[in-house]
């Protein structure tokens, strides 16, 4: 039943996209939209497919995804332990709270020029910007998840004589894991946006953003810019669904229990 509901959702989404593309195509062919402003949908689609065979563009995609993966990895490696520490030590949390509240609202894109100054290497710069933007969802979800850990579960382990660290490792971390995973999924989306933004603003030798900047100076650049944008969107959708799939597999106990409680 669940799969048929998911199936019909996918179908609805596909129909929506197809409808929108058809409308754009018709508007272009009827002369309602100047192709110099918005090329025909069919042209963009053709360019999108064409890019799949363009070795240089694929190298750009690889460069973006490399920065994305490294940035995300760094985020998880640093932020999850930090969130666990903050969540378990209320005094430390109270001390750094003002700093977090100050830093969090700063738009990450606004920090790209600063990152360019601080990190001469373009990859380092991208990773730093990605880290800054994507650490928040992971940090907040880790801390929030820790608050949700059932005190009875912790007491159970404690009653068998386990110490605080063992309780953190064997109870708090596993029960927080689904929340952390959701944070990482949100962070993955943010990380992709920031990777491309950093390339757009910071330049560098390769990346989807760099490709777009370079395409802007050529004659039929608009078509390629839009095709590259479609690629970026698809990368976002694919990575997001991979994360959702992994969450479903890993945290079956979480969803199954939530359904049982209902």
């Amino acid at each position, binding site marked *: 039943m669940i799969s048929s509901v998911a199936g019909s959702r996918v179908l609805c989404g596909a129909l929506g996209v197809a409808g929108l593309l058809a409308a754009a195509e018709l508007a272009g062919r009827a002369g309602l939209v100047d192709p110099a402003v918005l090329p025909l949908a069919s042209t963009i689609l053709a360019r999108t497919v064409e890019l799949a065979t363009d070795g240089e563009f694929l190298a750009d995609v690889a460069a973006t995804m490399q920065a994305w993966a490294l940035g995300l990895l760094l985020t998880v490696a640093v932020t999850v332990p930090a969130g666990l520490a903050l969540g378990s030590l209320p005094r430390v949390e109270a001390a750094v709270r003002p700093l977090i509240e100050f830093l969090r609202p700063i738009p990450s894109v606004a920090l790209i020029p600063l990152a360019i100054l601080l990190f001469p290497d373009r990859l380092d710069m991208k990773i730093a910007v990605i880290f800054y933007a994507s650490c928040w969802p992971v940090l907040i979800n880790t801390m929030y998840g820790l608050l949700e850990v*059932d005190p*009875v*579960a912790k*007491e*159970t*382990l*404690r*009653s*068998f*004589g*386990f110490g605080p660290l063992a309780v953190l490792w*064997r*109870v708090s971390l*596993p*029960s927080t*894991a689904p929340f952390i995973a959701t944070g990482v999924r949100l962070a993955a989306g943010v990380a992709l946006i920031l990777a491309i933004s950093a390339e757009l603003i910071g330049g560098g030798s390769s990346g989807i953003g760099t490709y777009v900047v370079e395409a802007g100076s050529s004659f039929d650049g608009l078509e390629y810019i839009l095709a590259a944008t479609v690629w970026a969107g698809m990368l976002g959708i694919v990575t997001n669904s991979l994360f959702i799939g992994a969450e479903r597999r890993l*945290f079956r*106990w*979480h969803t*199954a*229990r939530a359904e*049982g409680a209902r």
Partner: protein
Amino acid sequence: MLEISNLSHTYGSGPSAHTALGGIDLSVAEGELVCIVGPSGCGKSTLLRSVAGLITPTGGRILLKGVPVNQTPDDLAVVFQDYSRSLFPWMSVADNVSLPLRRRGQDKRQRRESAMDALEQVGLADAAAKYPWQLSGGMQQRVSIARALAYRPSLLLMDEPFGSVDAQTREDLEDLTLRVRGHHNMTILLITHDIDESVYVGDRVVVLSKSPGGIAGDLRVGLPGPRDQITTREHPEFVRLRAEVGRLVRGMRSHPAAAS
């Protein structure tokens, strides 16, 4: 085995302070099964949590095998009332049961064997590979009993362990408790609000008075032979004790002679 002297506990401080326990003296001999009954809110769970070292009582002293309890003692297991929250949903039933055995310094194979042994005793050997949330409430409570049994504690604490299962399962679990304590020489402290249950499973019934809890009565249960759900409950001594405990729980003076 267990010596509790003048134990008191006050939650909070200042005007909102609440005294849950007001001076409890209780001693439990090795191998005894003591039931603790009392009205809701009289401090039964507070008493159990103090003995388990989960809270530090504000007054009095608890000695377990002559050693003061200040942290969670090593040789003790707790069966919580809330089984669904006390089992870990991310682990299989077998892993839930074997996890505490790490404290016993057993290797993986030994832990696995002890866990299967304990699950066998509670009749759940088939469910070892399942997850707790795939089991019924009664089965989950049996898993948490198996977990406590596998640990082989010398003192087992049970906080209203059969409070939220149906009547039939409840009787089965009562008999299970009686059976396993015969196998392992365990001392058991069982909290319940069910007067019949306390008389049926206990060697002794300790009645706590209304808040702040103190000891209202301490009765020895002298029922003949192995207990049986039908015949034991018909026995005149069972009927007399049940009335006596009921009177004490309701805060009436005890009149053993008047019970006929």
